[in-house]
């Protein structure tokens, strides 16, 4: 299938990209790796007038260690994220979840920032951004602003980006020693989107859970924090004797899971409980 016609622009700097975006009007779309956008164009589910390809904007690519956080540039590919020693050492949850995105060929093209800005609740990285309280850095021709992940995912496929803004990357806080991580994903086939996914970061202390951050993939129009589980699991014994299972029973509280060909909402609710339990066990390494 062939996309509808569009104008194409390939700026070579962020400044140029912002200028082009500012001039192009609201029907323009920013093209990152294209692994979500190009299928939408082929199916003619999207009709941008202009595609602004930021694939050659070198300053948007790369990973940097900034002491208390790691900055991941928006155009860093999934493949680069998975292989980054800095990400694996300081933000292992990002590496774990990114390794489950689609397949190798898609990870070679698909980008970290593209999957956040696409704001698909079935994508793996939005829930990770939420669980880790990432700060998303966006730029427009009038300057820079920082949006906490909790405010970034407004609705289905709708990020908190204003017209003229481009996501330039995310600050990923480093969580210190004592934290364990896991991304648990259930999907129908190897490369399919998550039916439900659970991103978990857990800090243990003296055999109990001191603190947990849990976010759910595909349990509503946006990724969502499992706040009831986070509260219930505080102080729970970090072992296999049932306390983690009991806390995980709260996983579907406050969610609004979609129903589709592959899963009804009640099945997704069930999955969220089972997968949260598994994610807690794995993050606690028990």
């Amino acid at each position: 299938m062939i996309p509808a016609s569009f104008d194409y622009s390939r700026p070579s700097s962020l400044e140029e990209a912002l200028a082009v975006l500012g001039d192009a009007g609201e029907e323009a779309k920013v093209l990152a790796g294209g692994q979500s956008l190009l299928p939408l164009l082929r199916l003619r589910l999207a009709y941008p007038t202009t595609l602004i390809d930021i694939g050659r904007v070198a300053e948007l690519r790369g990973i940097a260690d900034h002491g208390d956080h790691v900055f991941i540039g928006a155009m860093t590919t999934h493949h680069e994220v998975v292989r980054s020693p800095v990400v694996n050492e300081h933000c292992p949850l990002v590496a774990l979840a990114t390794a489950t995105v689609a397949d190798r060929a898609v990870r070679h093209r698909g980008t970290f920032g593209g999957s956040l800005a696409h704001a698909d609740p079935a994508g793996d990285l939005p829930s990770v951004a939420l669980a880790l309280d990432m700060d998303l850095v966006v730029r427009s021709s009038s300057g820079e602003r920082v949006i906490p992940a909790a405010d970034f995912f407004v609705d289905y496929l709708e990020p908190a980006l204003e017209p003229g803004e481009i996501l330039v990357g995310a600050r990923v806080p480093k969580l210190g020693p004592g934290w364990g991580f896991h991304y648990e994903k259930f999907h129908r086939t190897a490369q399919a989107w998550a039916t439900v996914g659970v991103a978990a970061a857990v800090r243990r202390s003296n055999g109990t859970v001191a603190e947990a951050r849990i976010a759910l993939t595909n349990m509503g129009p946006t990724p969502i924090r499992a706040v009831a589980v986070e509260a219930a699991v505080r102080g729970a014994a970090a072992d296999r004797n049932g306390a983690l299972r009991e806390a995980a029973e709260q996983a579907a509280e406050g969610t609004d899971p979609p129903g589709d060909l592959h899963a009804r909402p009640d099945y997704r609710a069930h999955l969220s409980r089972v997968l949260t339990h598994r994610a807690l066990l794995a993050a606690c390494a028990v």
Partner: protein
Amino acid sequence: MPRITVKVDDITYEEDVEPRTLLVHFLRDRLGKTGTPIGCDTSNCGSCTVLMDGRSVKSCSVLAVQADESEIVTIEGLASDGNWHPMQRAFHEEHALQCGYCTPGMILAAIDLLNDDPDPSDEAIRQGLEGNLCRCTGYCNIVRAVRRGAEEMGVTSR
């Protein structure tokens, strides 16, 4: 109309392309490289996999303009001096195909996998080829072929 310069199977082409032209259509319809088939056209099946600057990509999910200044290798560019690439030979010898539709993508995805992991386990091969679907073989012979191809490529590079 943008003009792109792209090297495909060792030949450099300069072509005017409509921005909406997909790389797979450029390869097949403009350059006549029909060795790269279109399978699902929804980025699921992997049969249109090619190497772009040494990395596997699904050519139905890349615009030709995005491939400007890059180097593409298709299934048609693997043999040299009339000799098949070791991975092509391994697929033949291990009966890793029936209808052959997925084979170009499988072979290029396998070669890409070996760039990162020259001696993959069966599990790593299955994971590494998760983006390539075969509806005939049940995959067992494909996994065997990739292992054999890996062994032979190892011998070649030594």
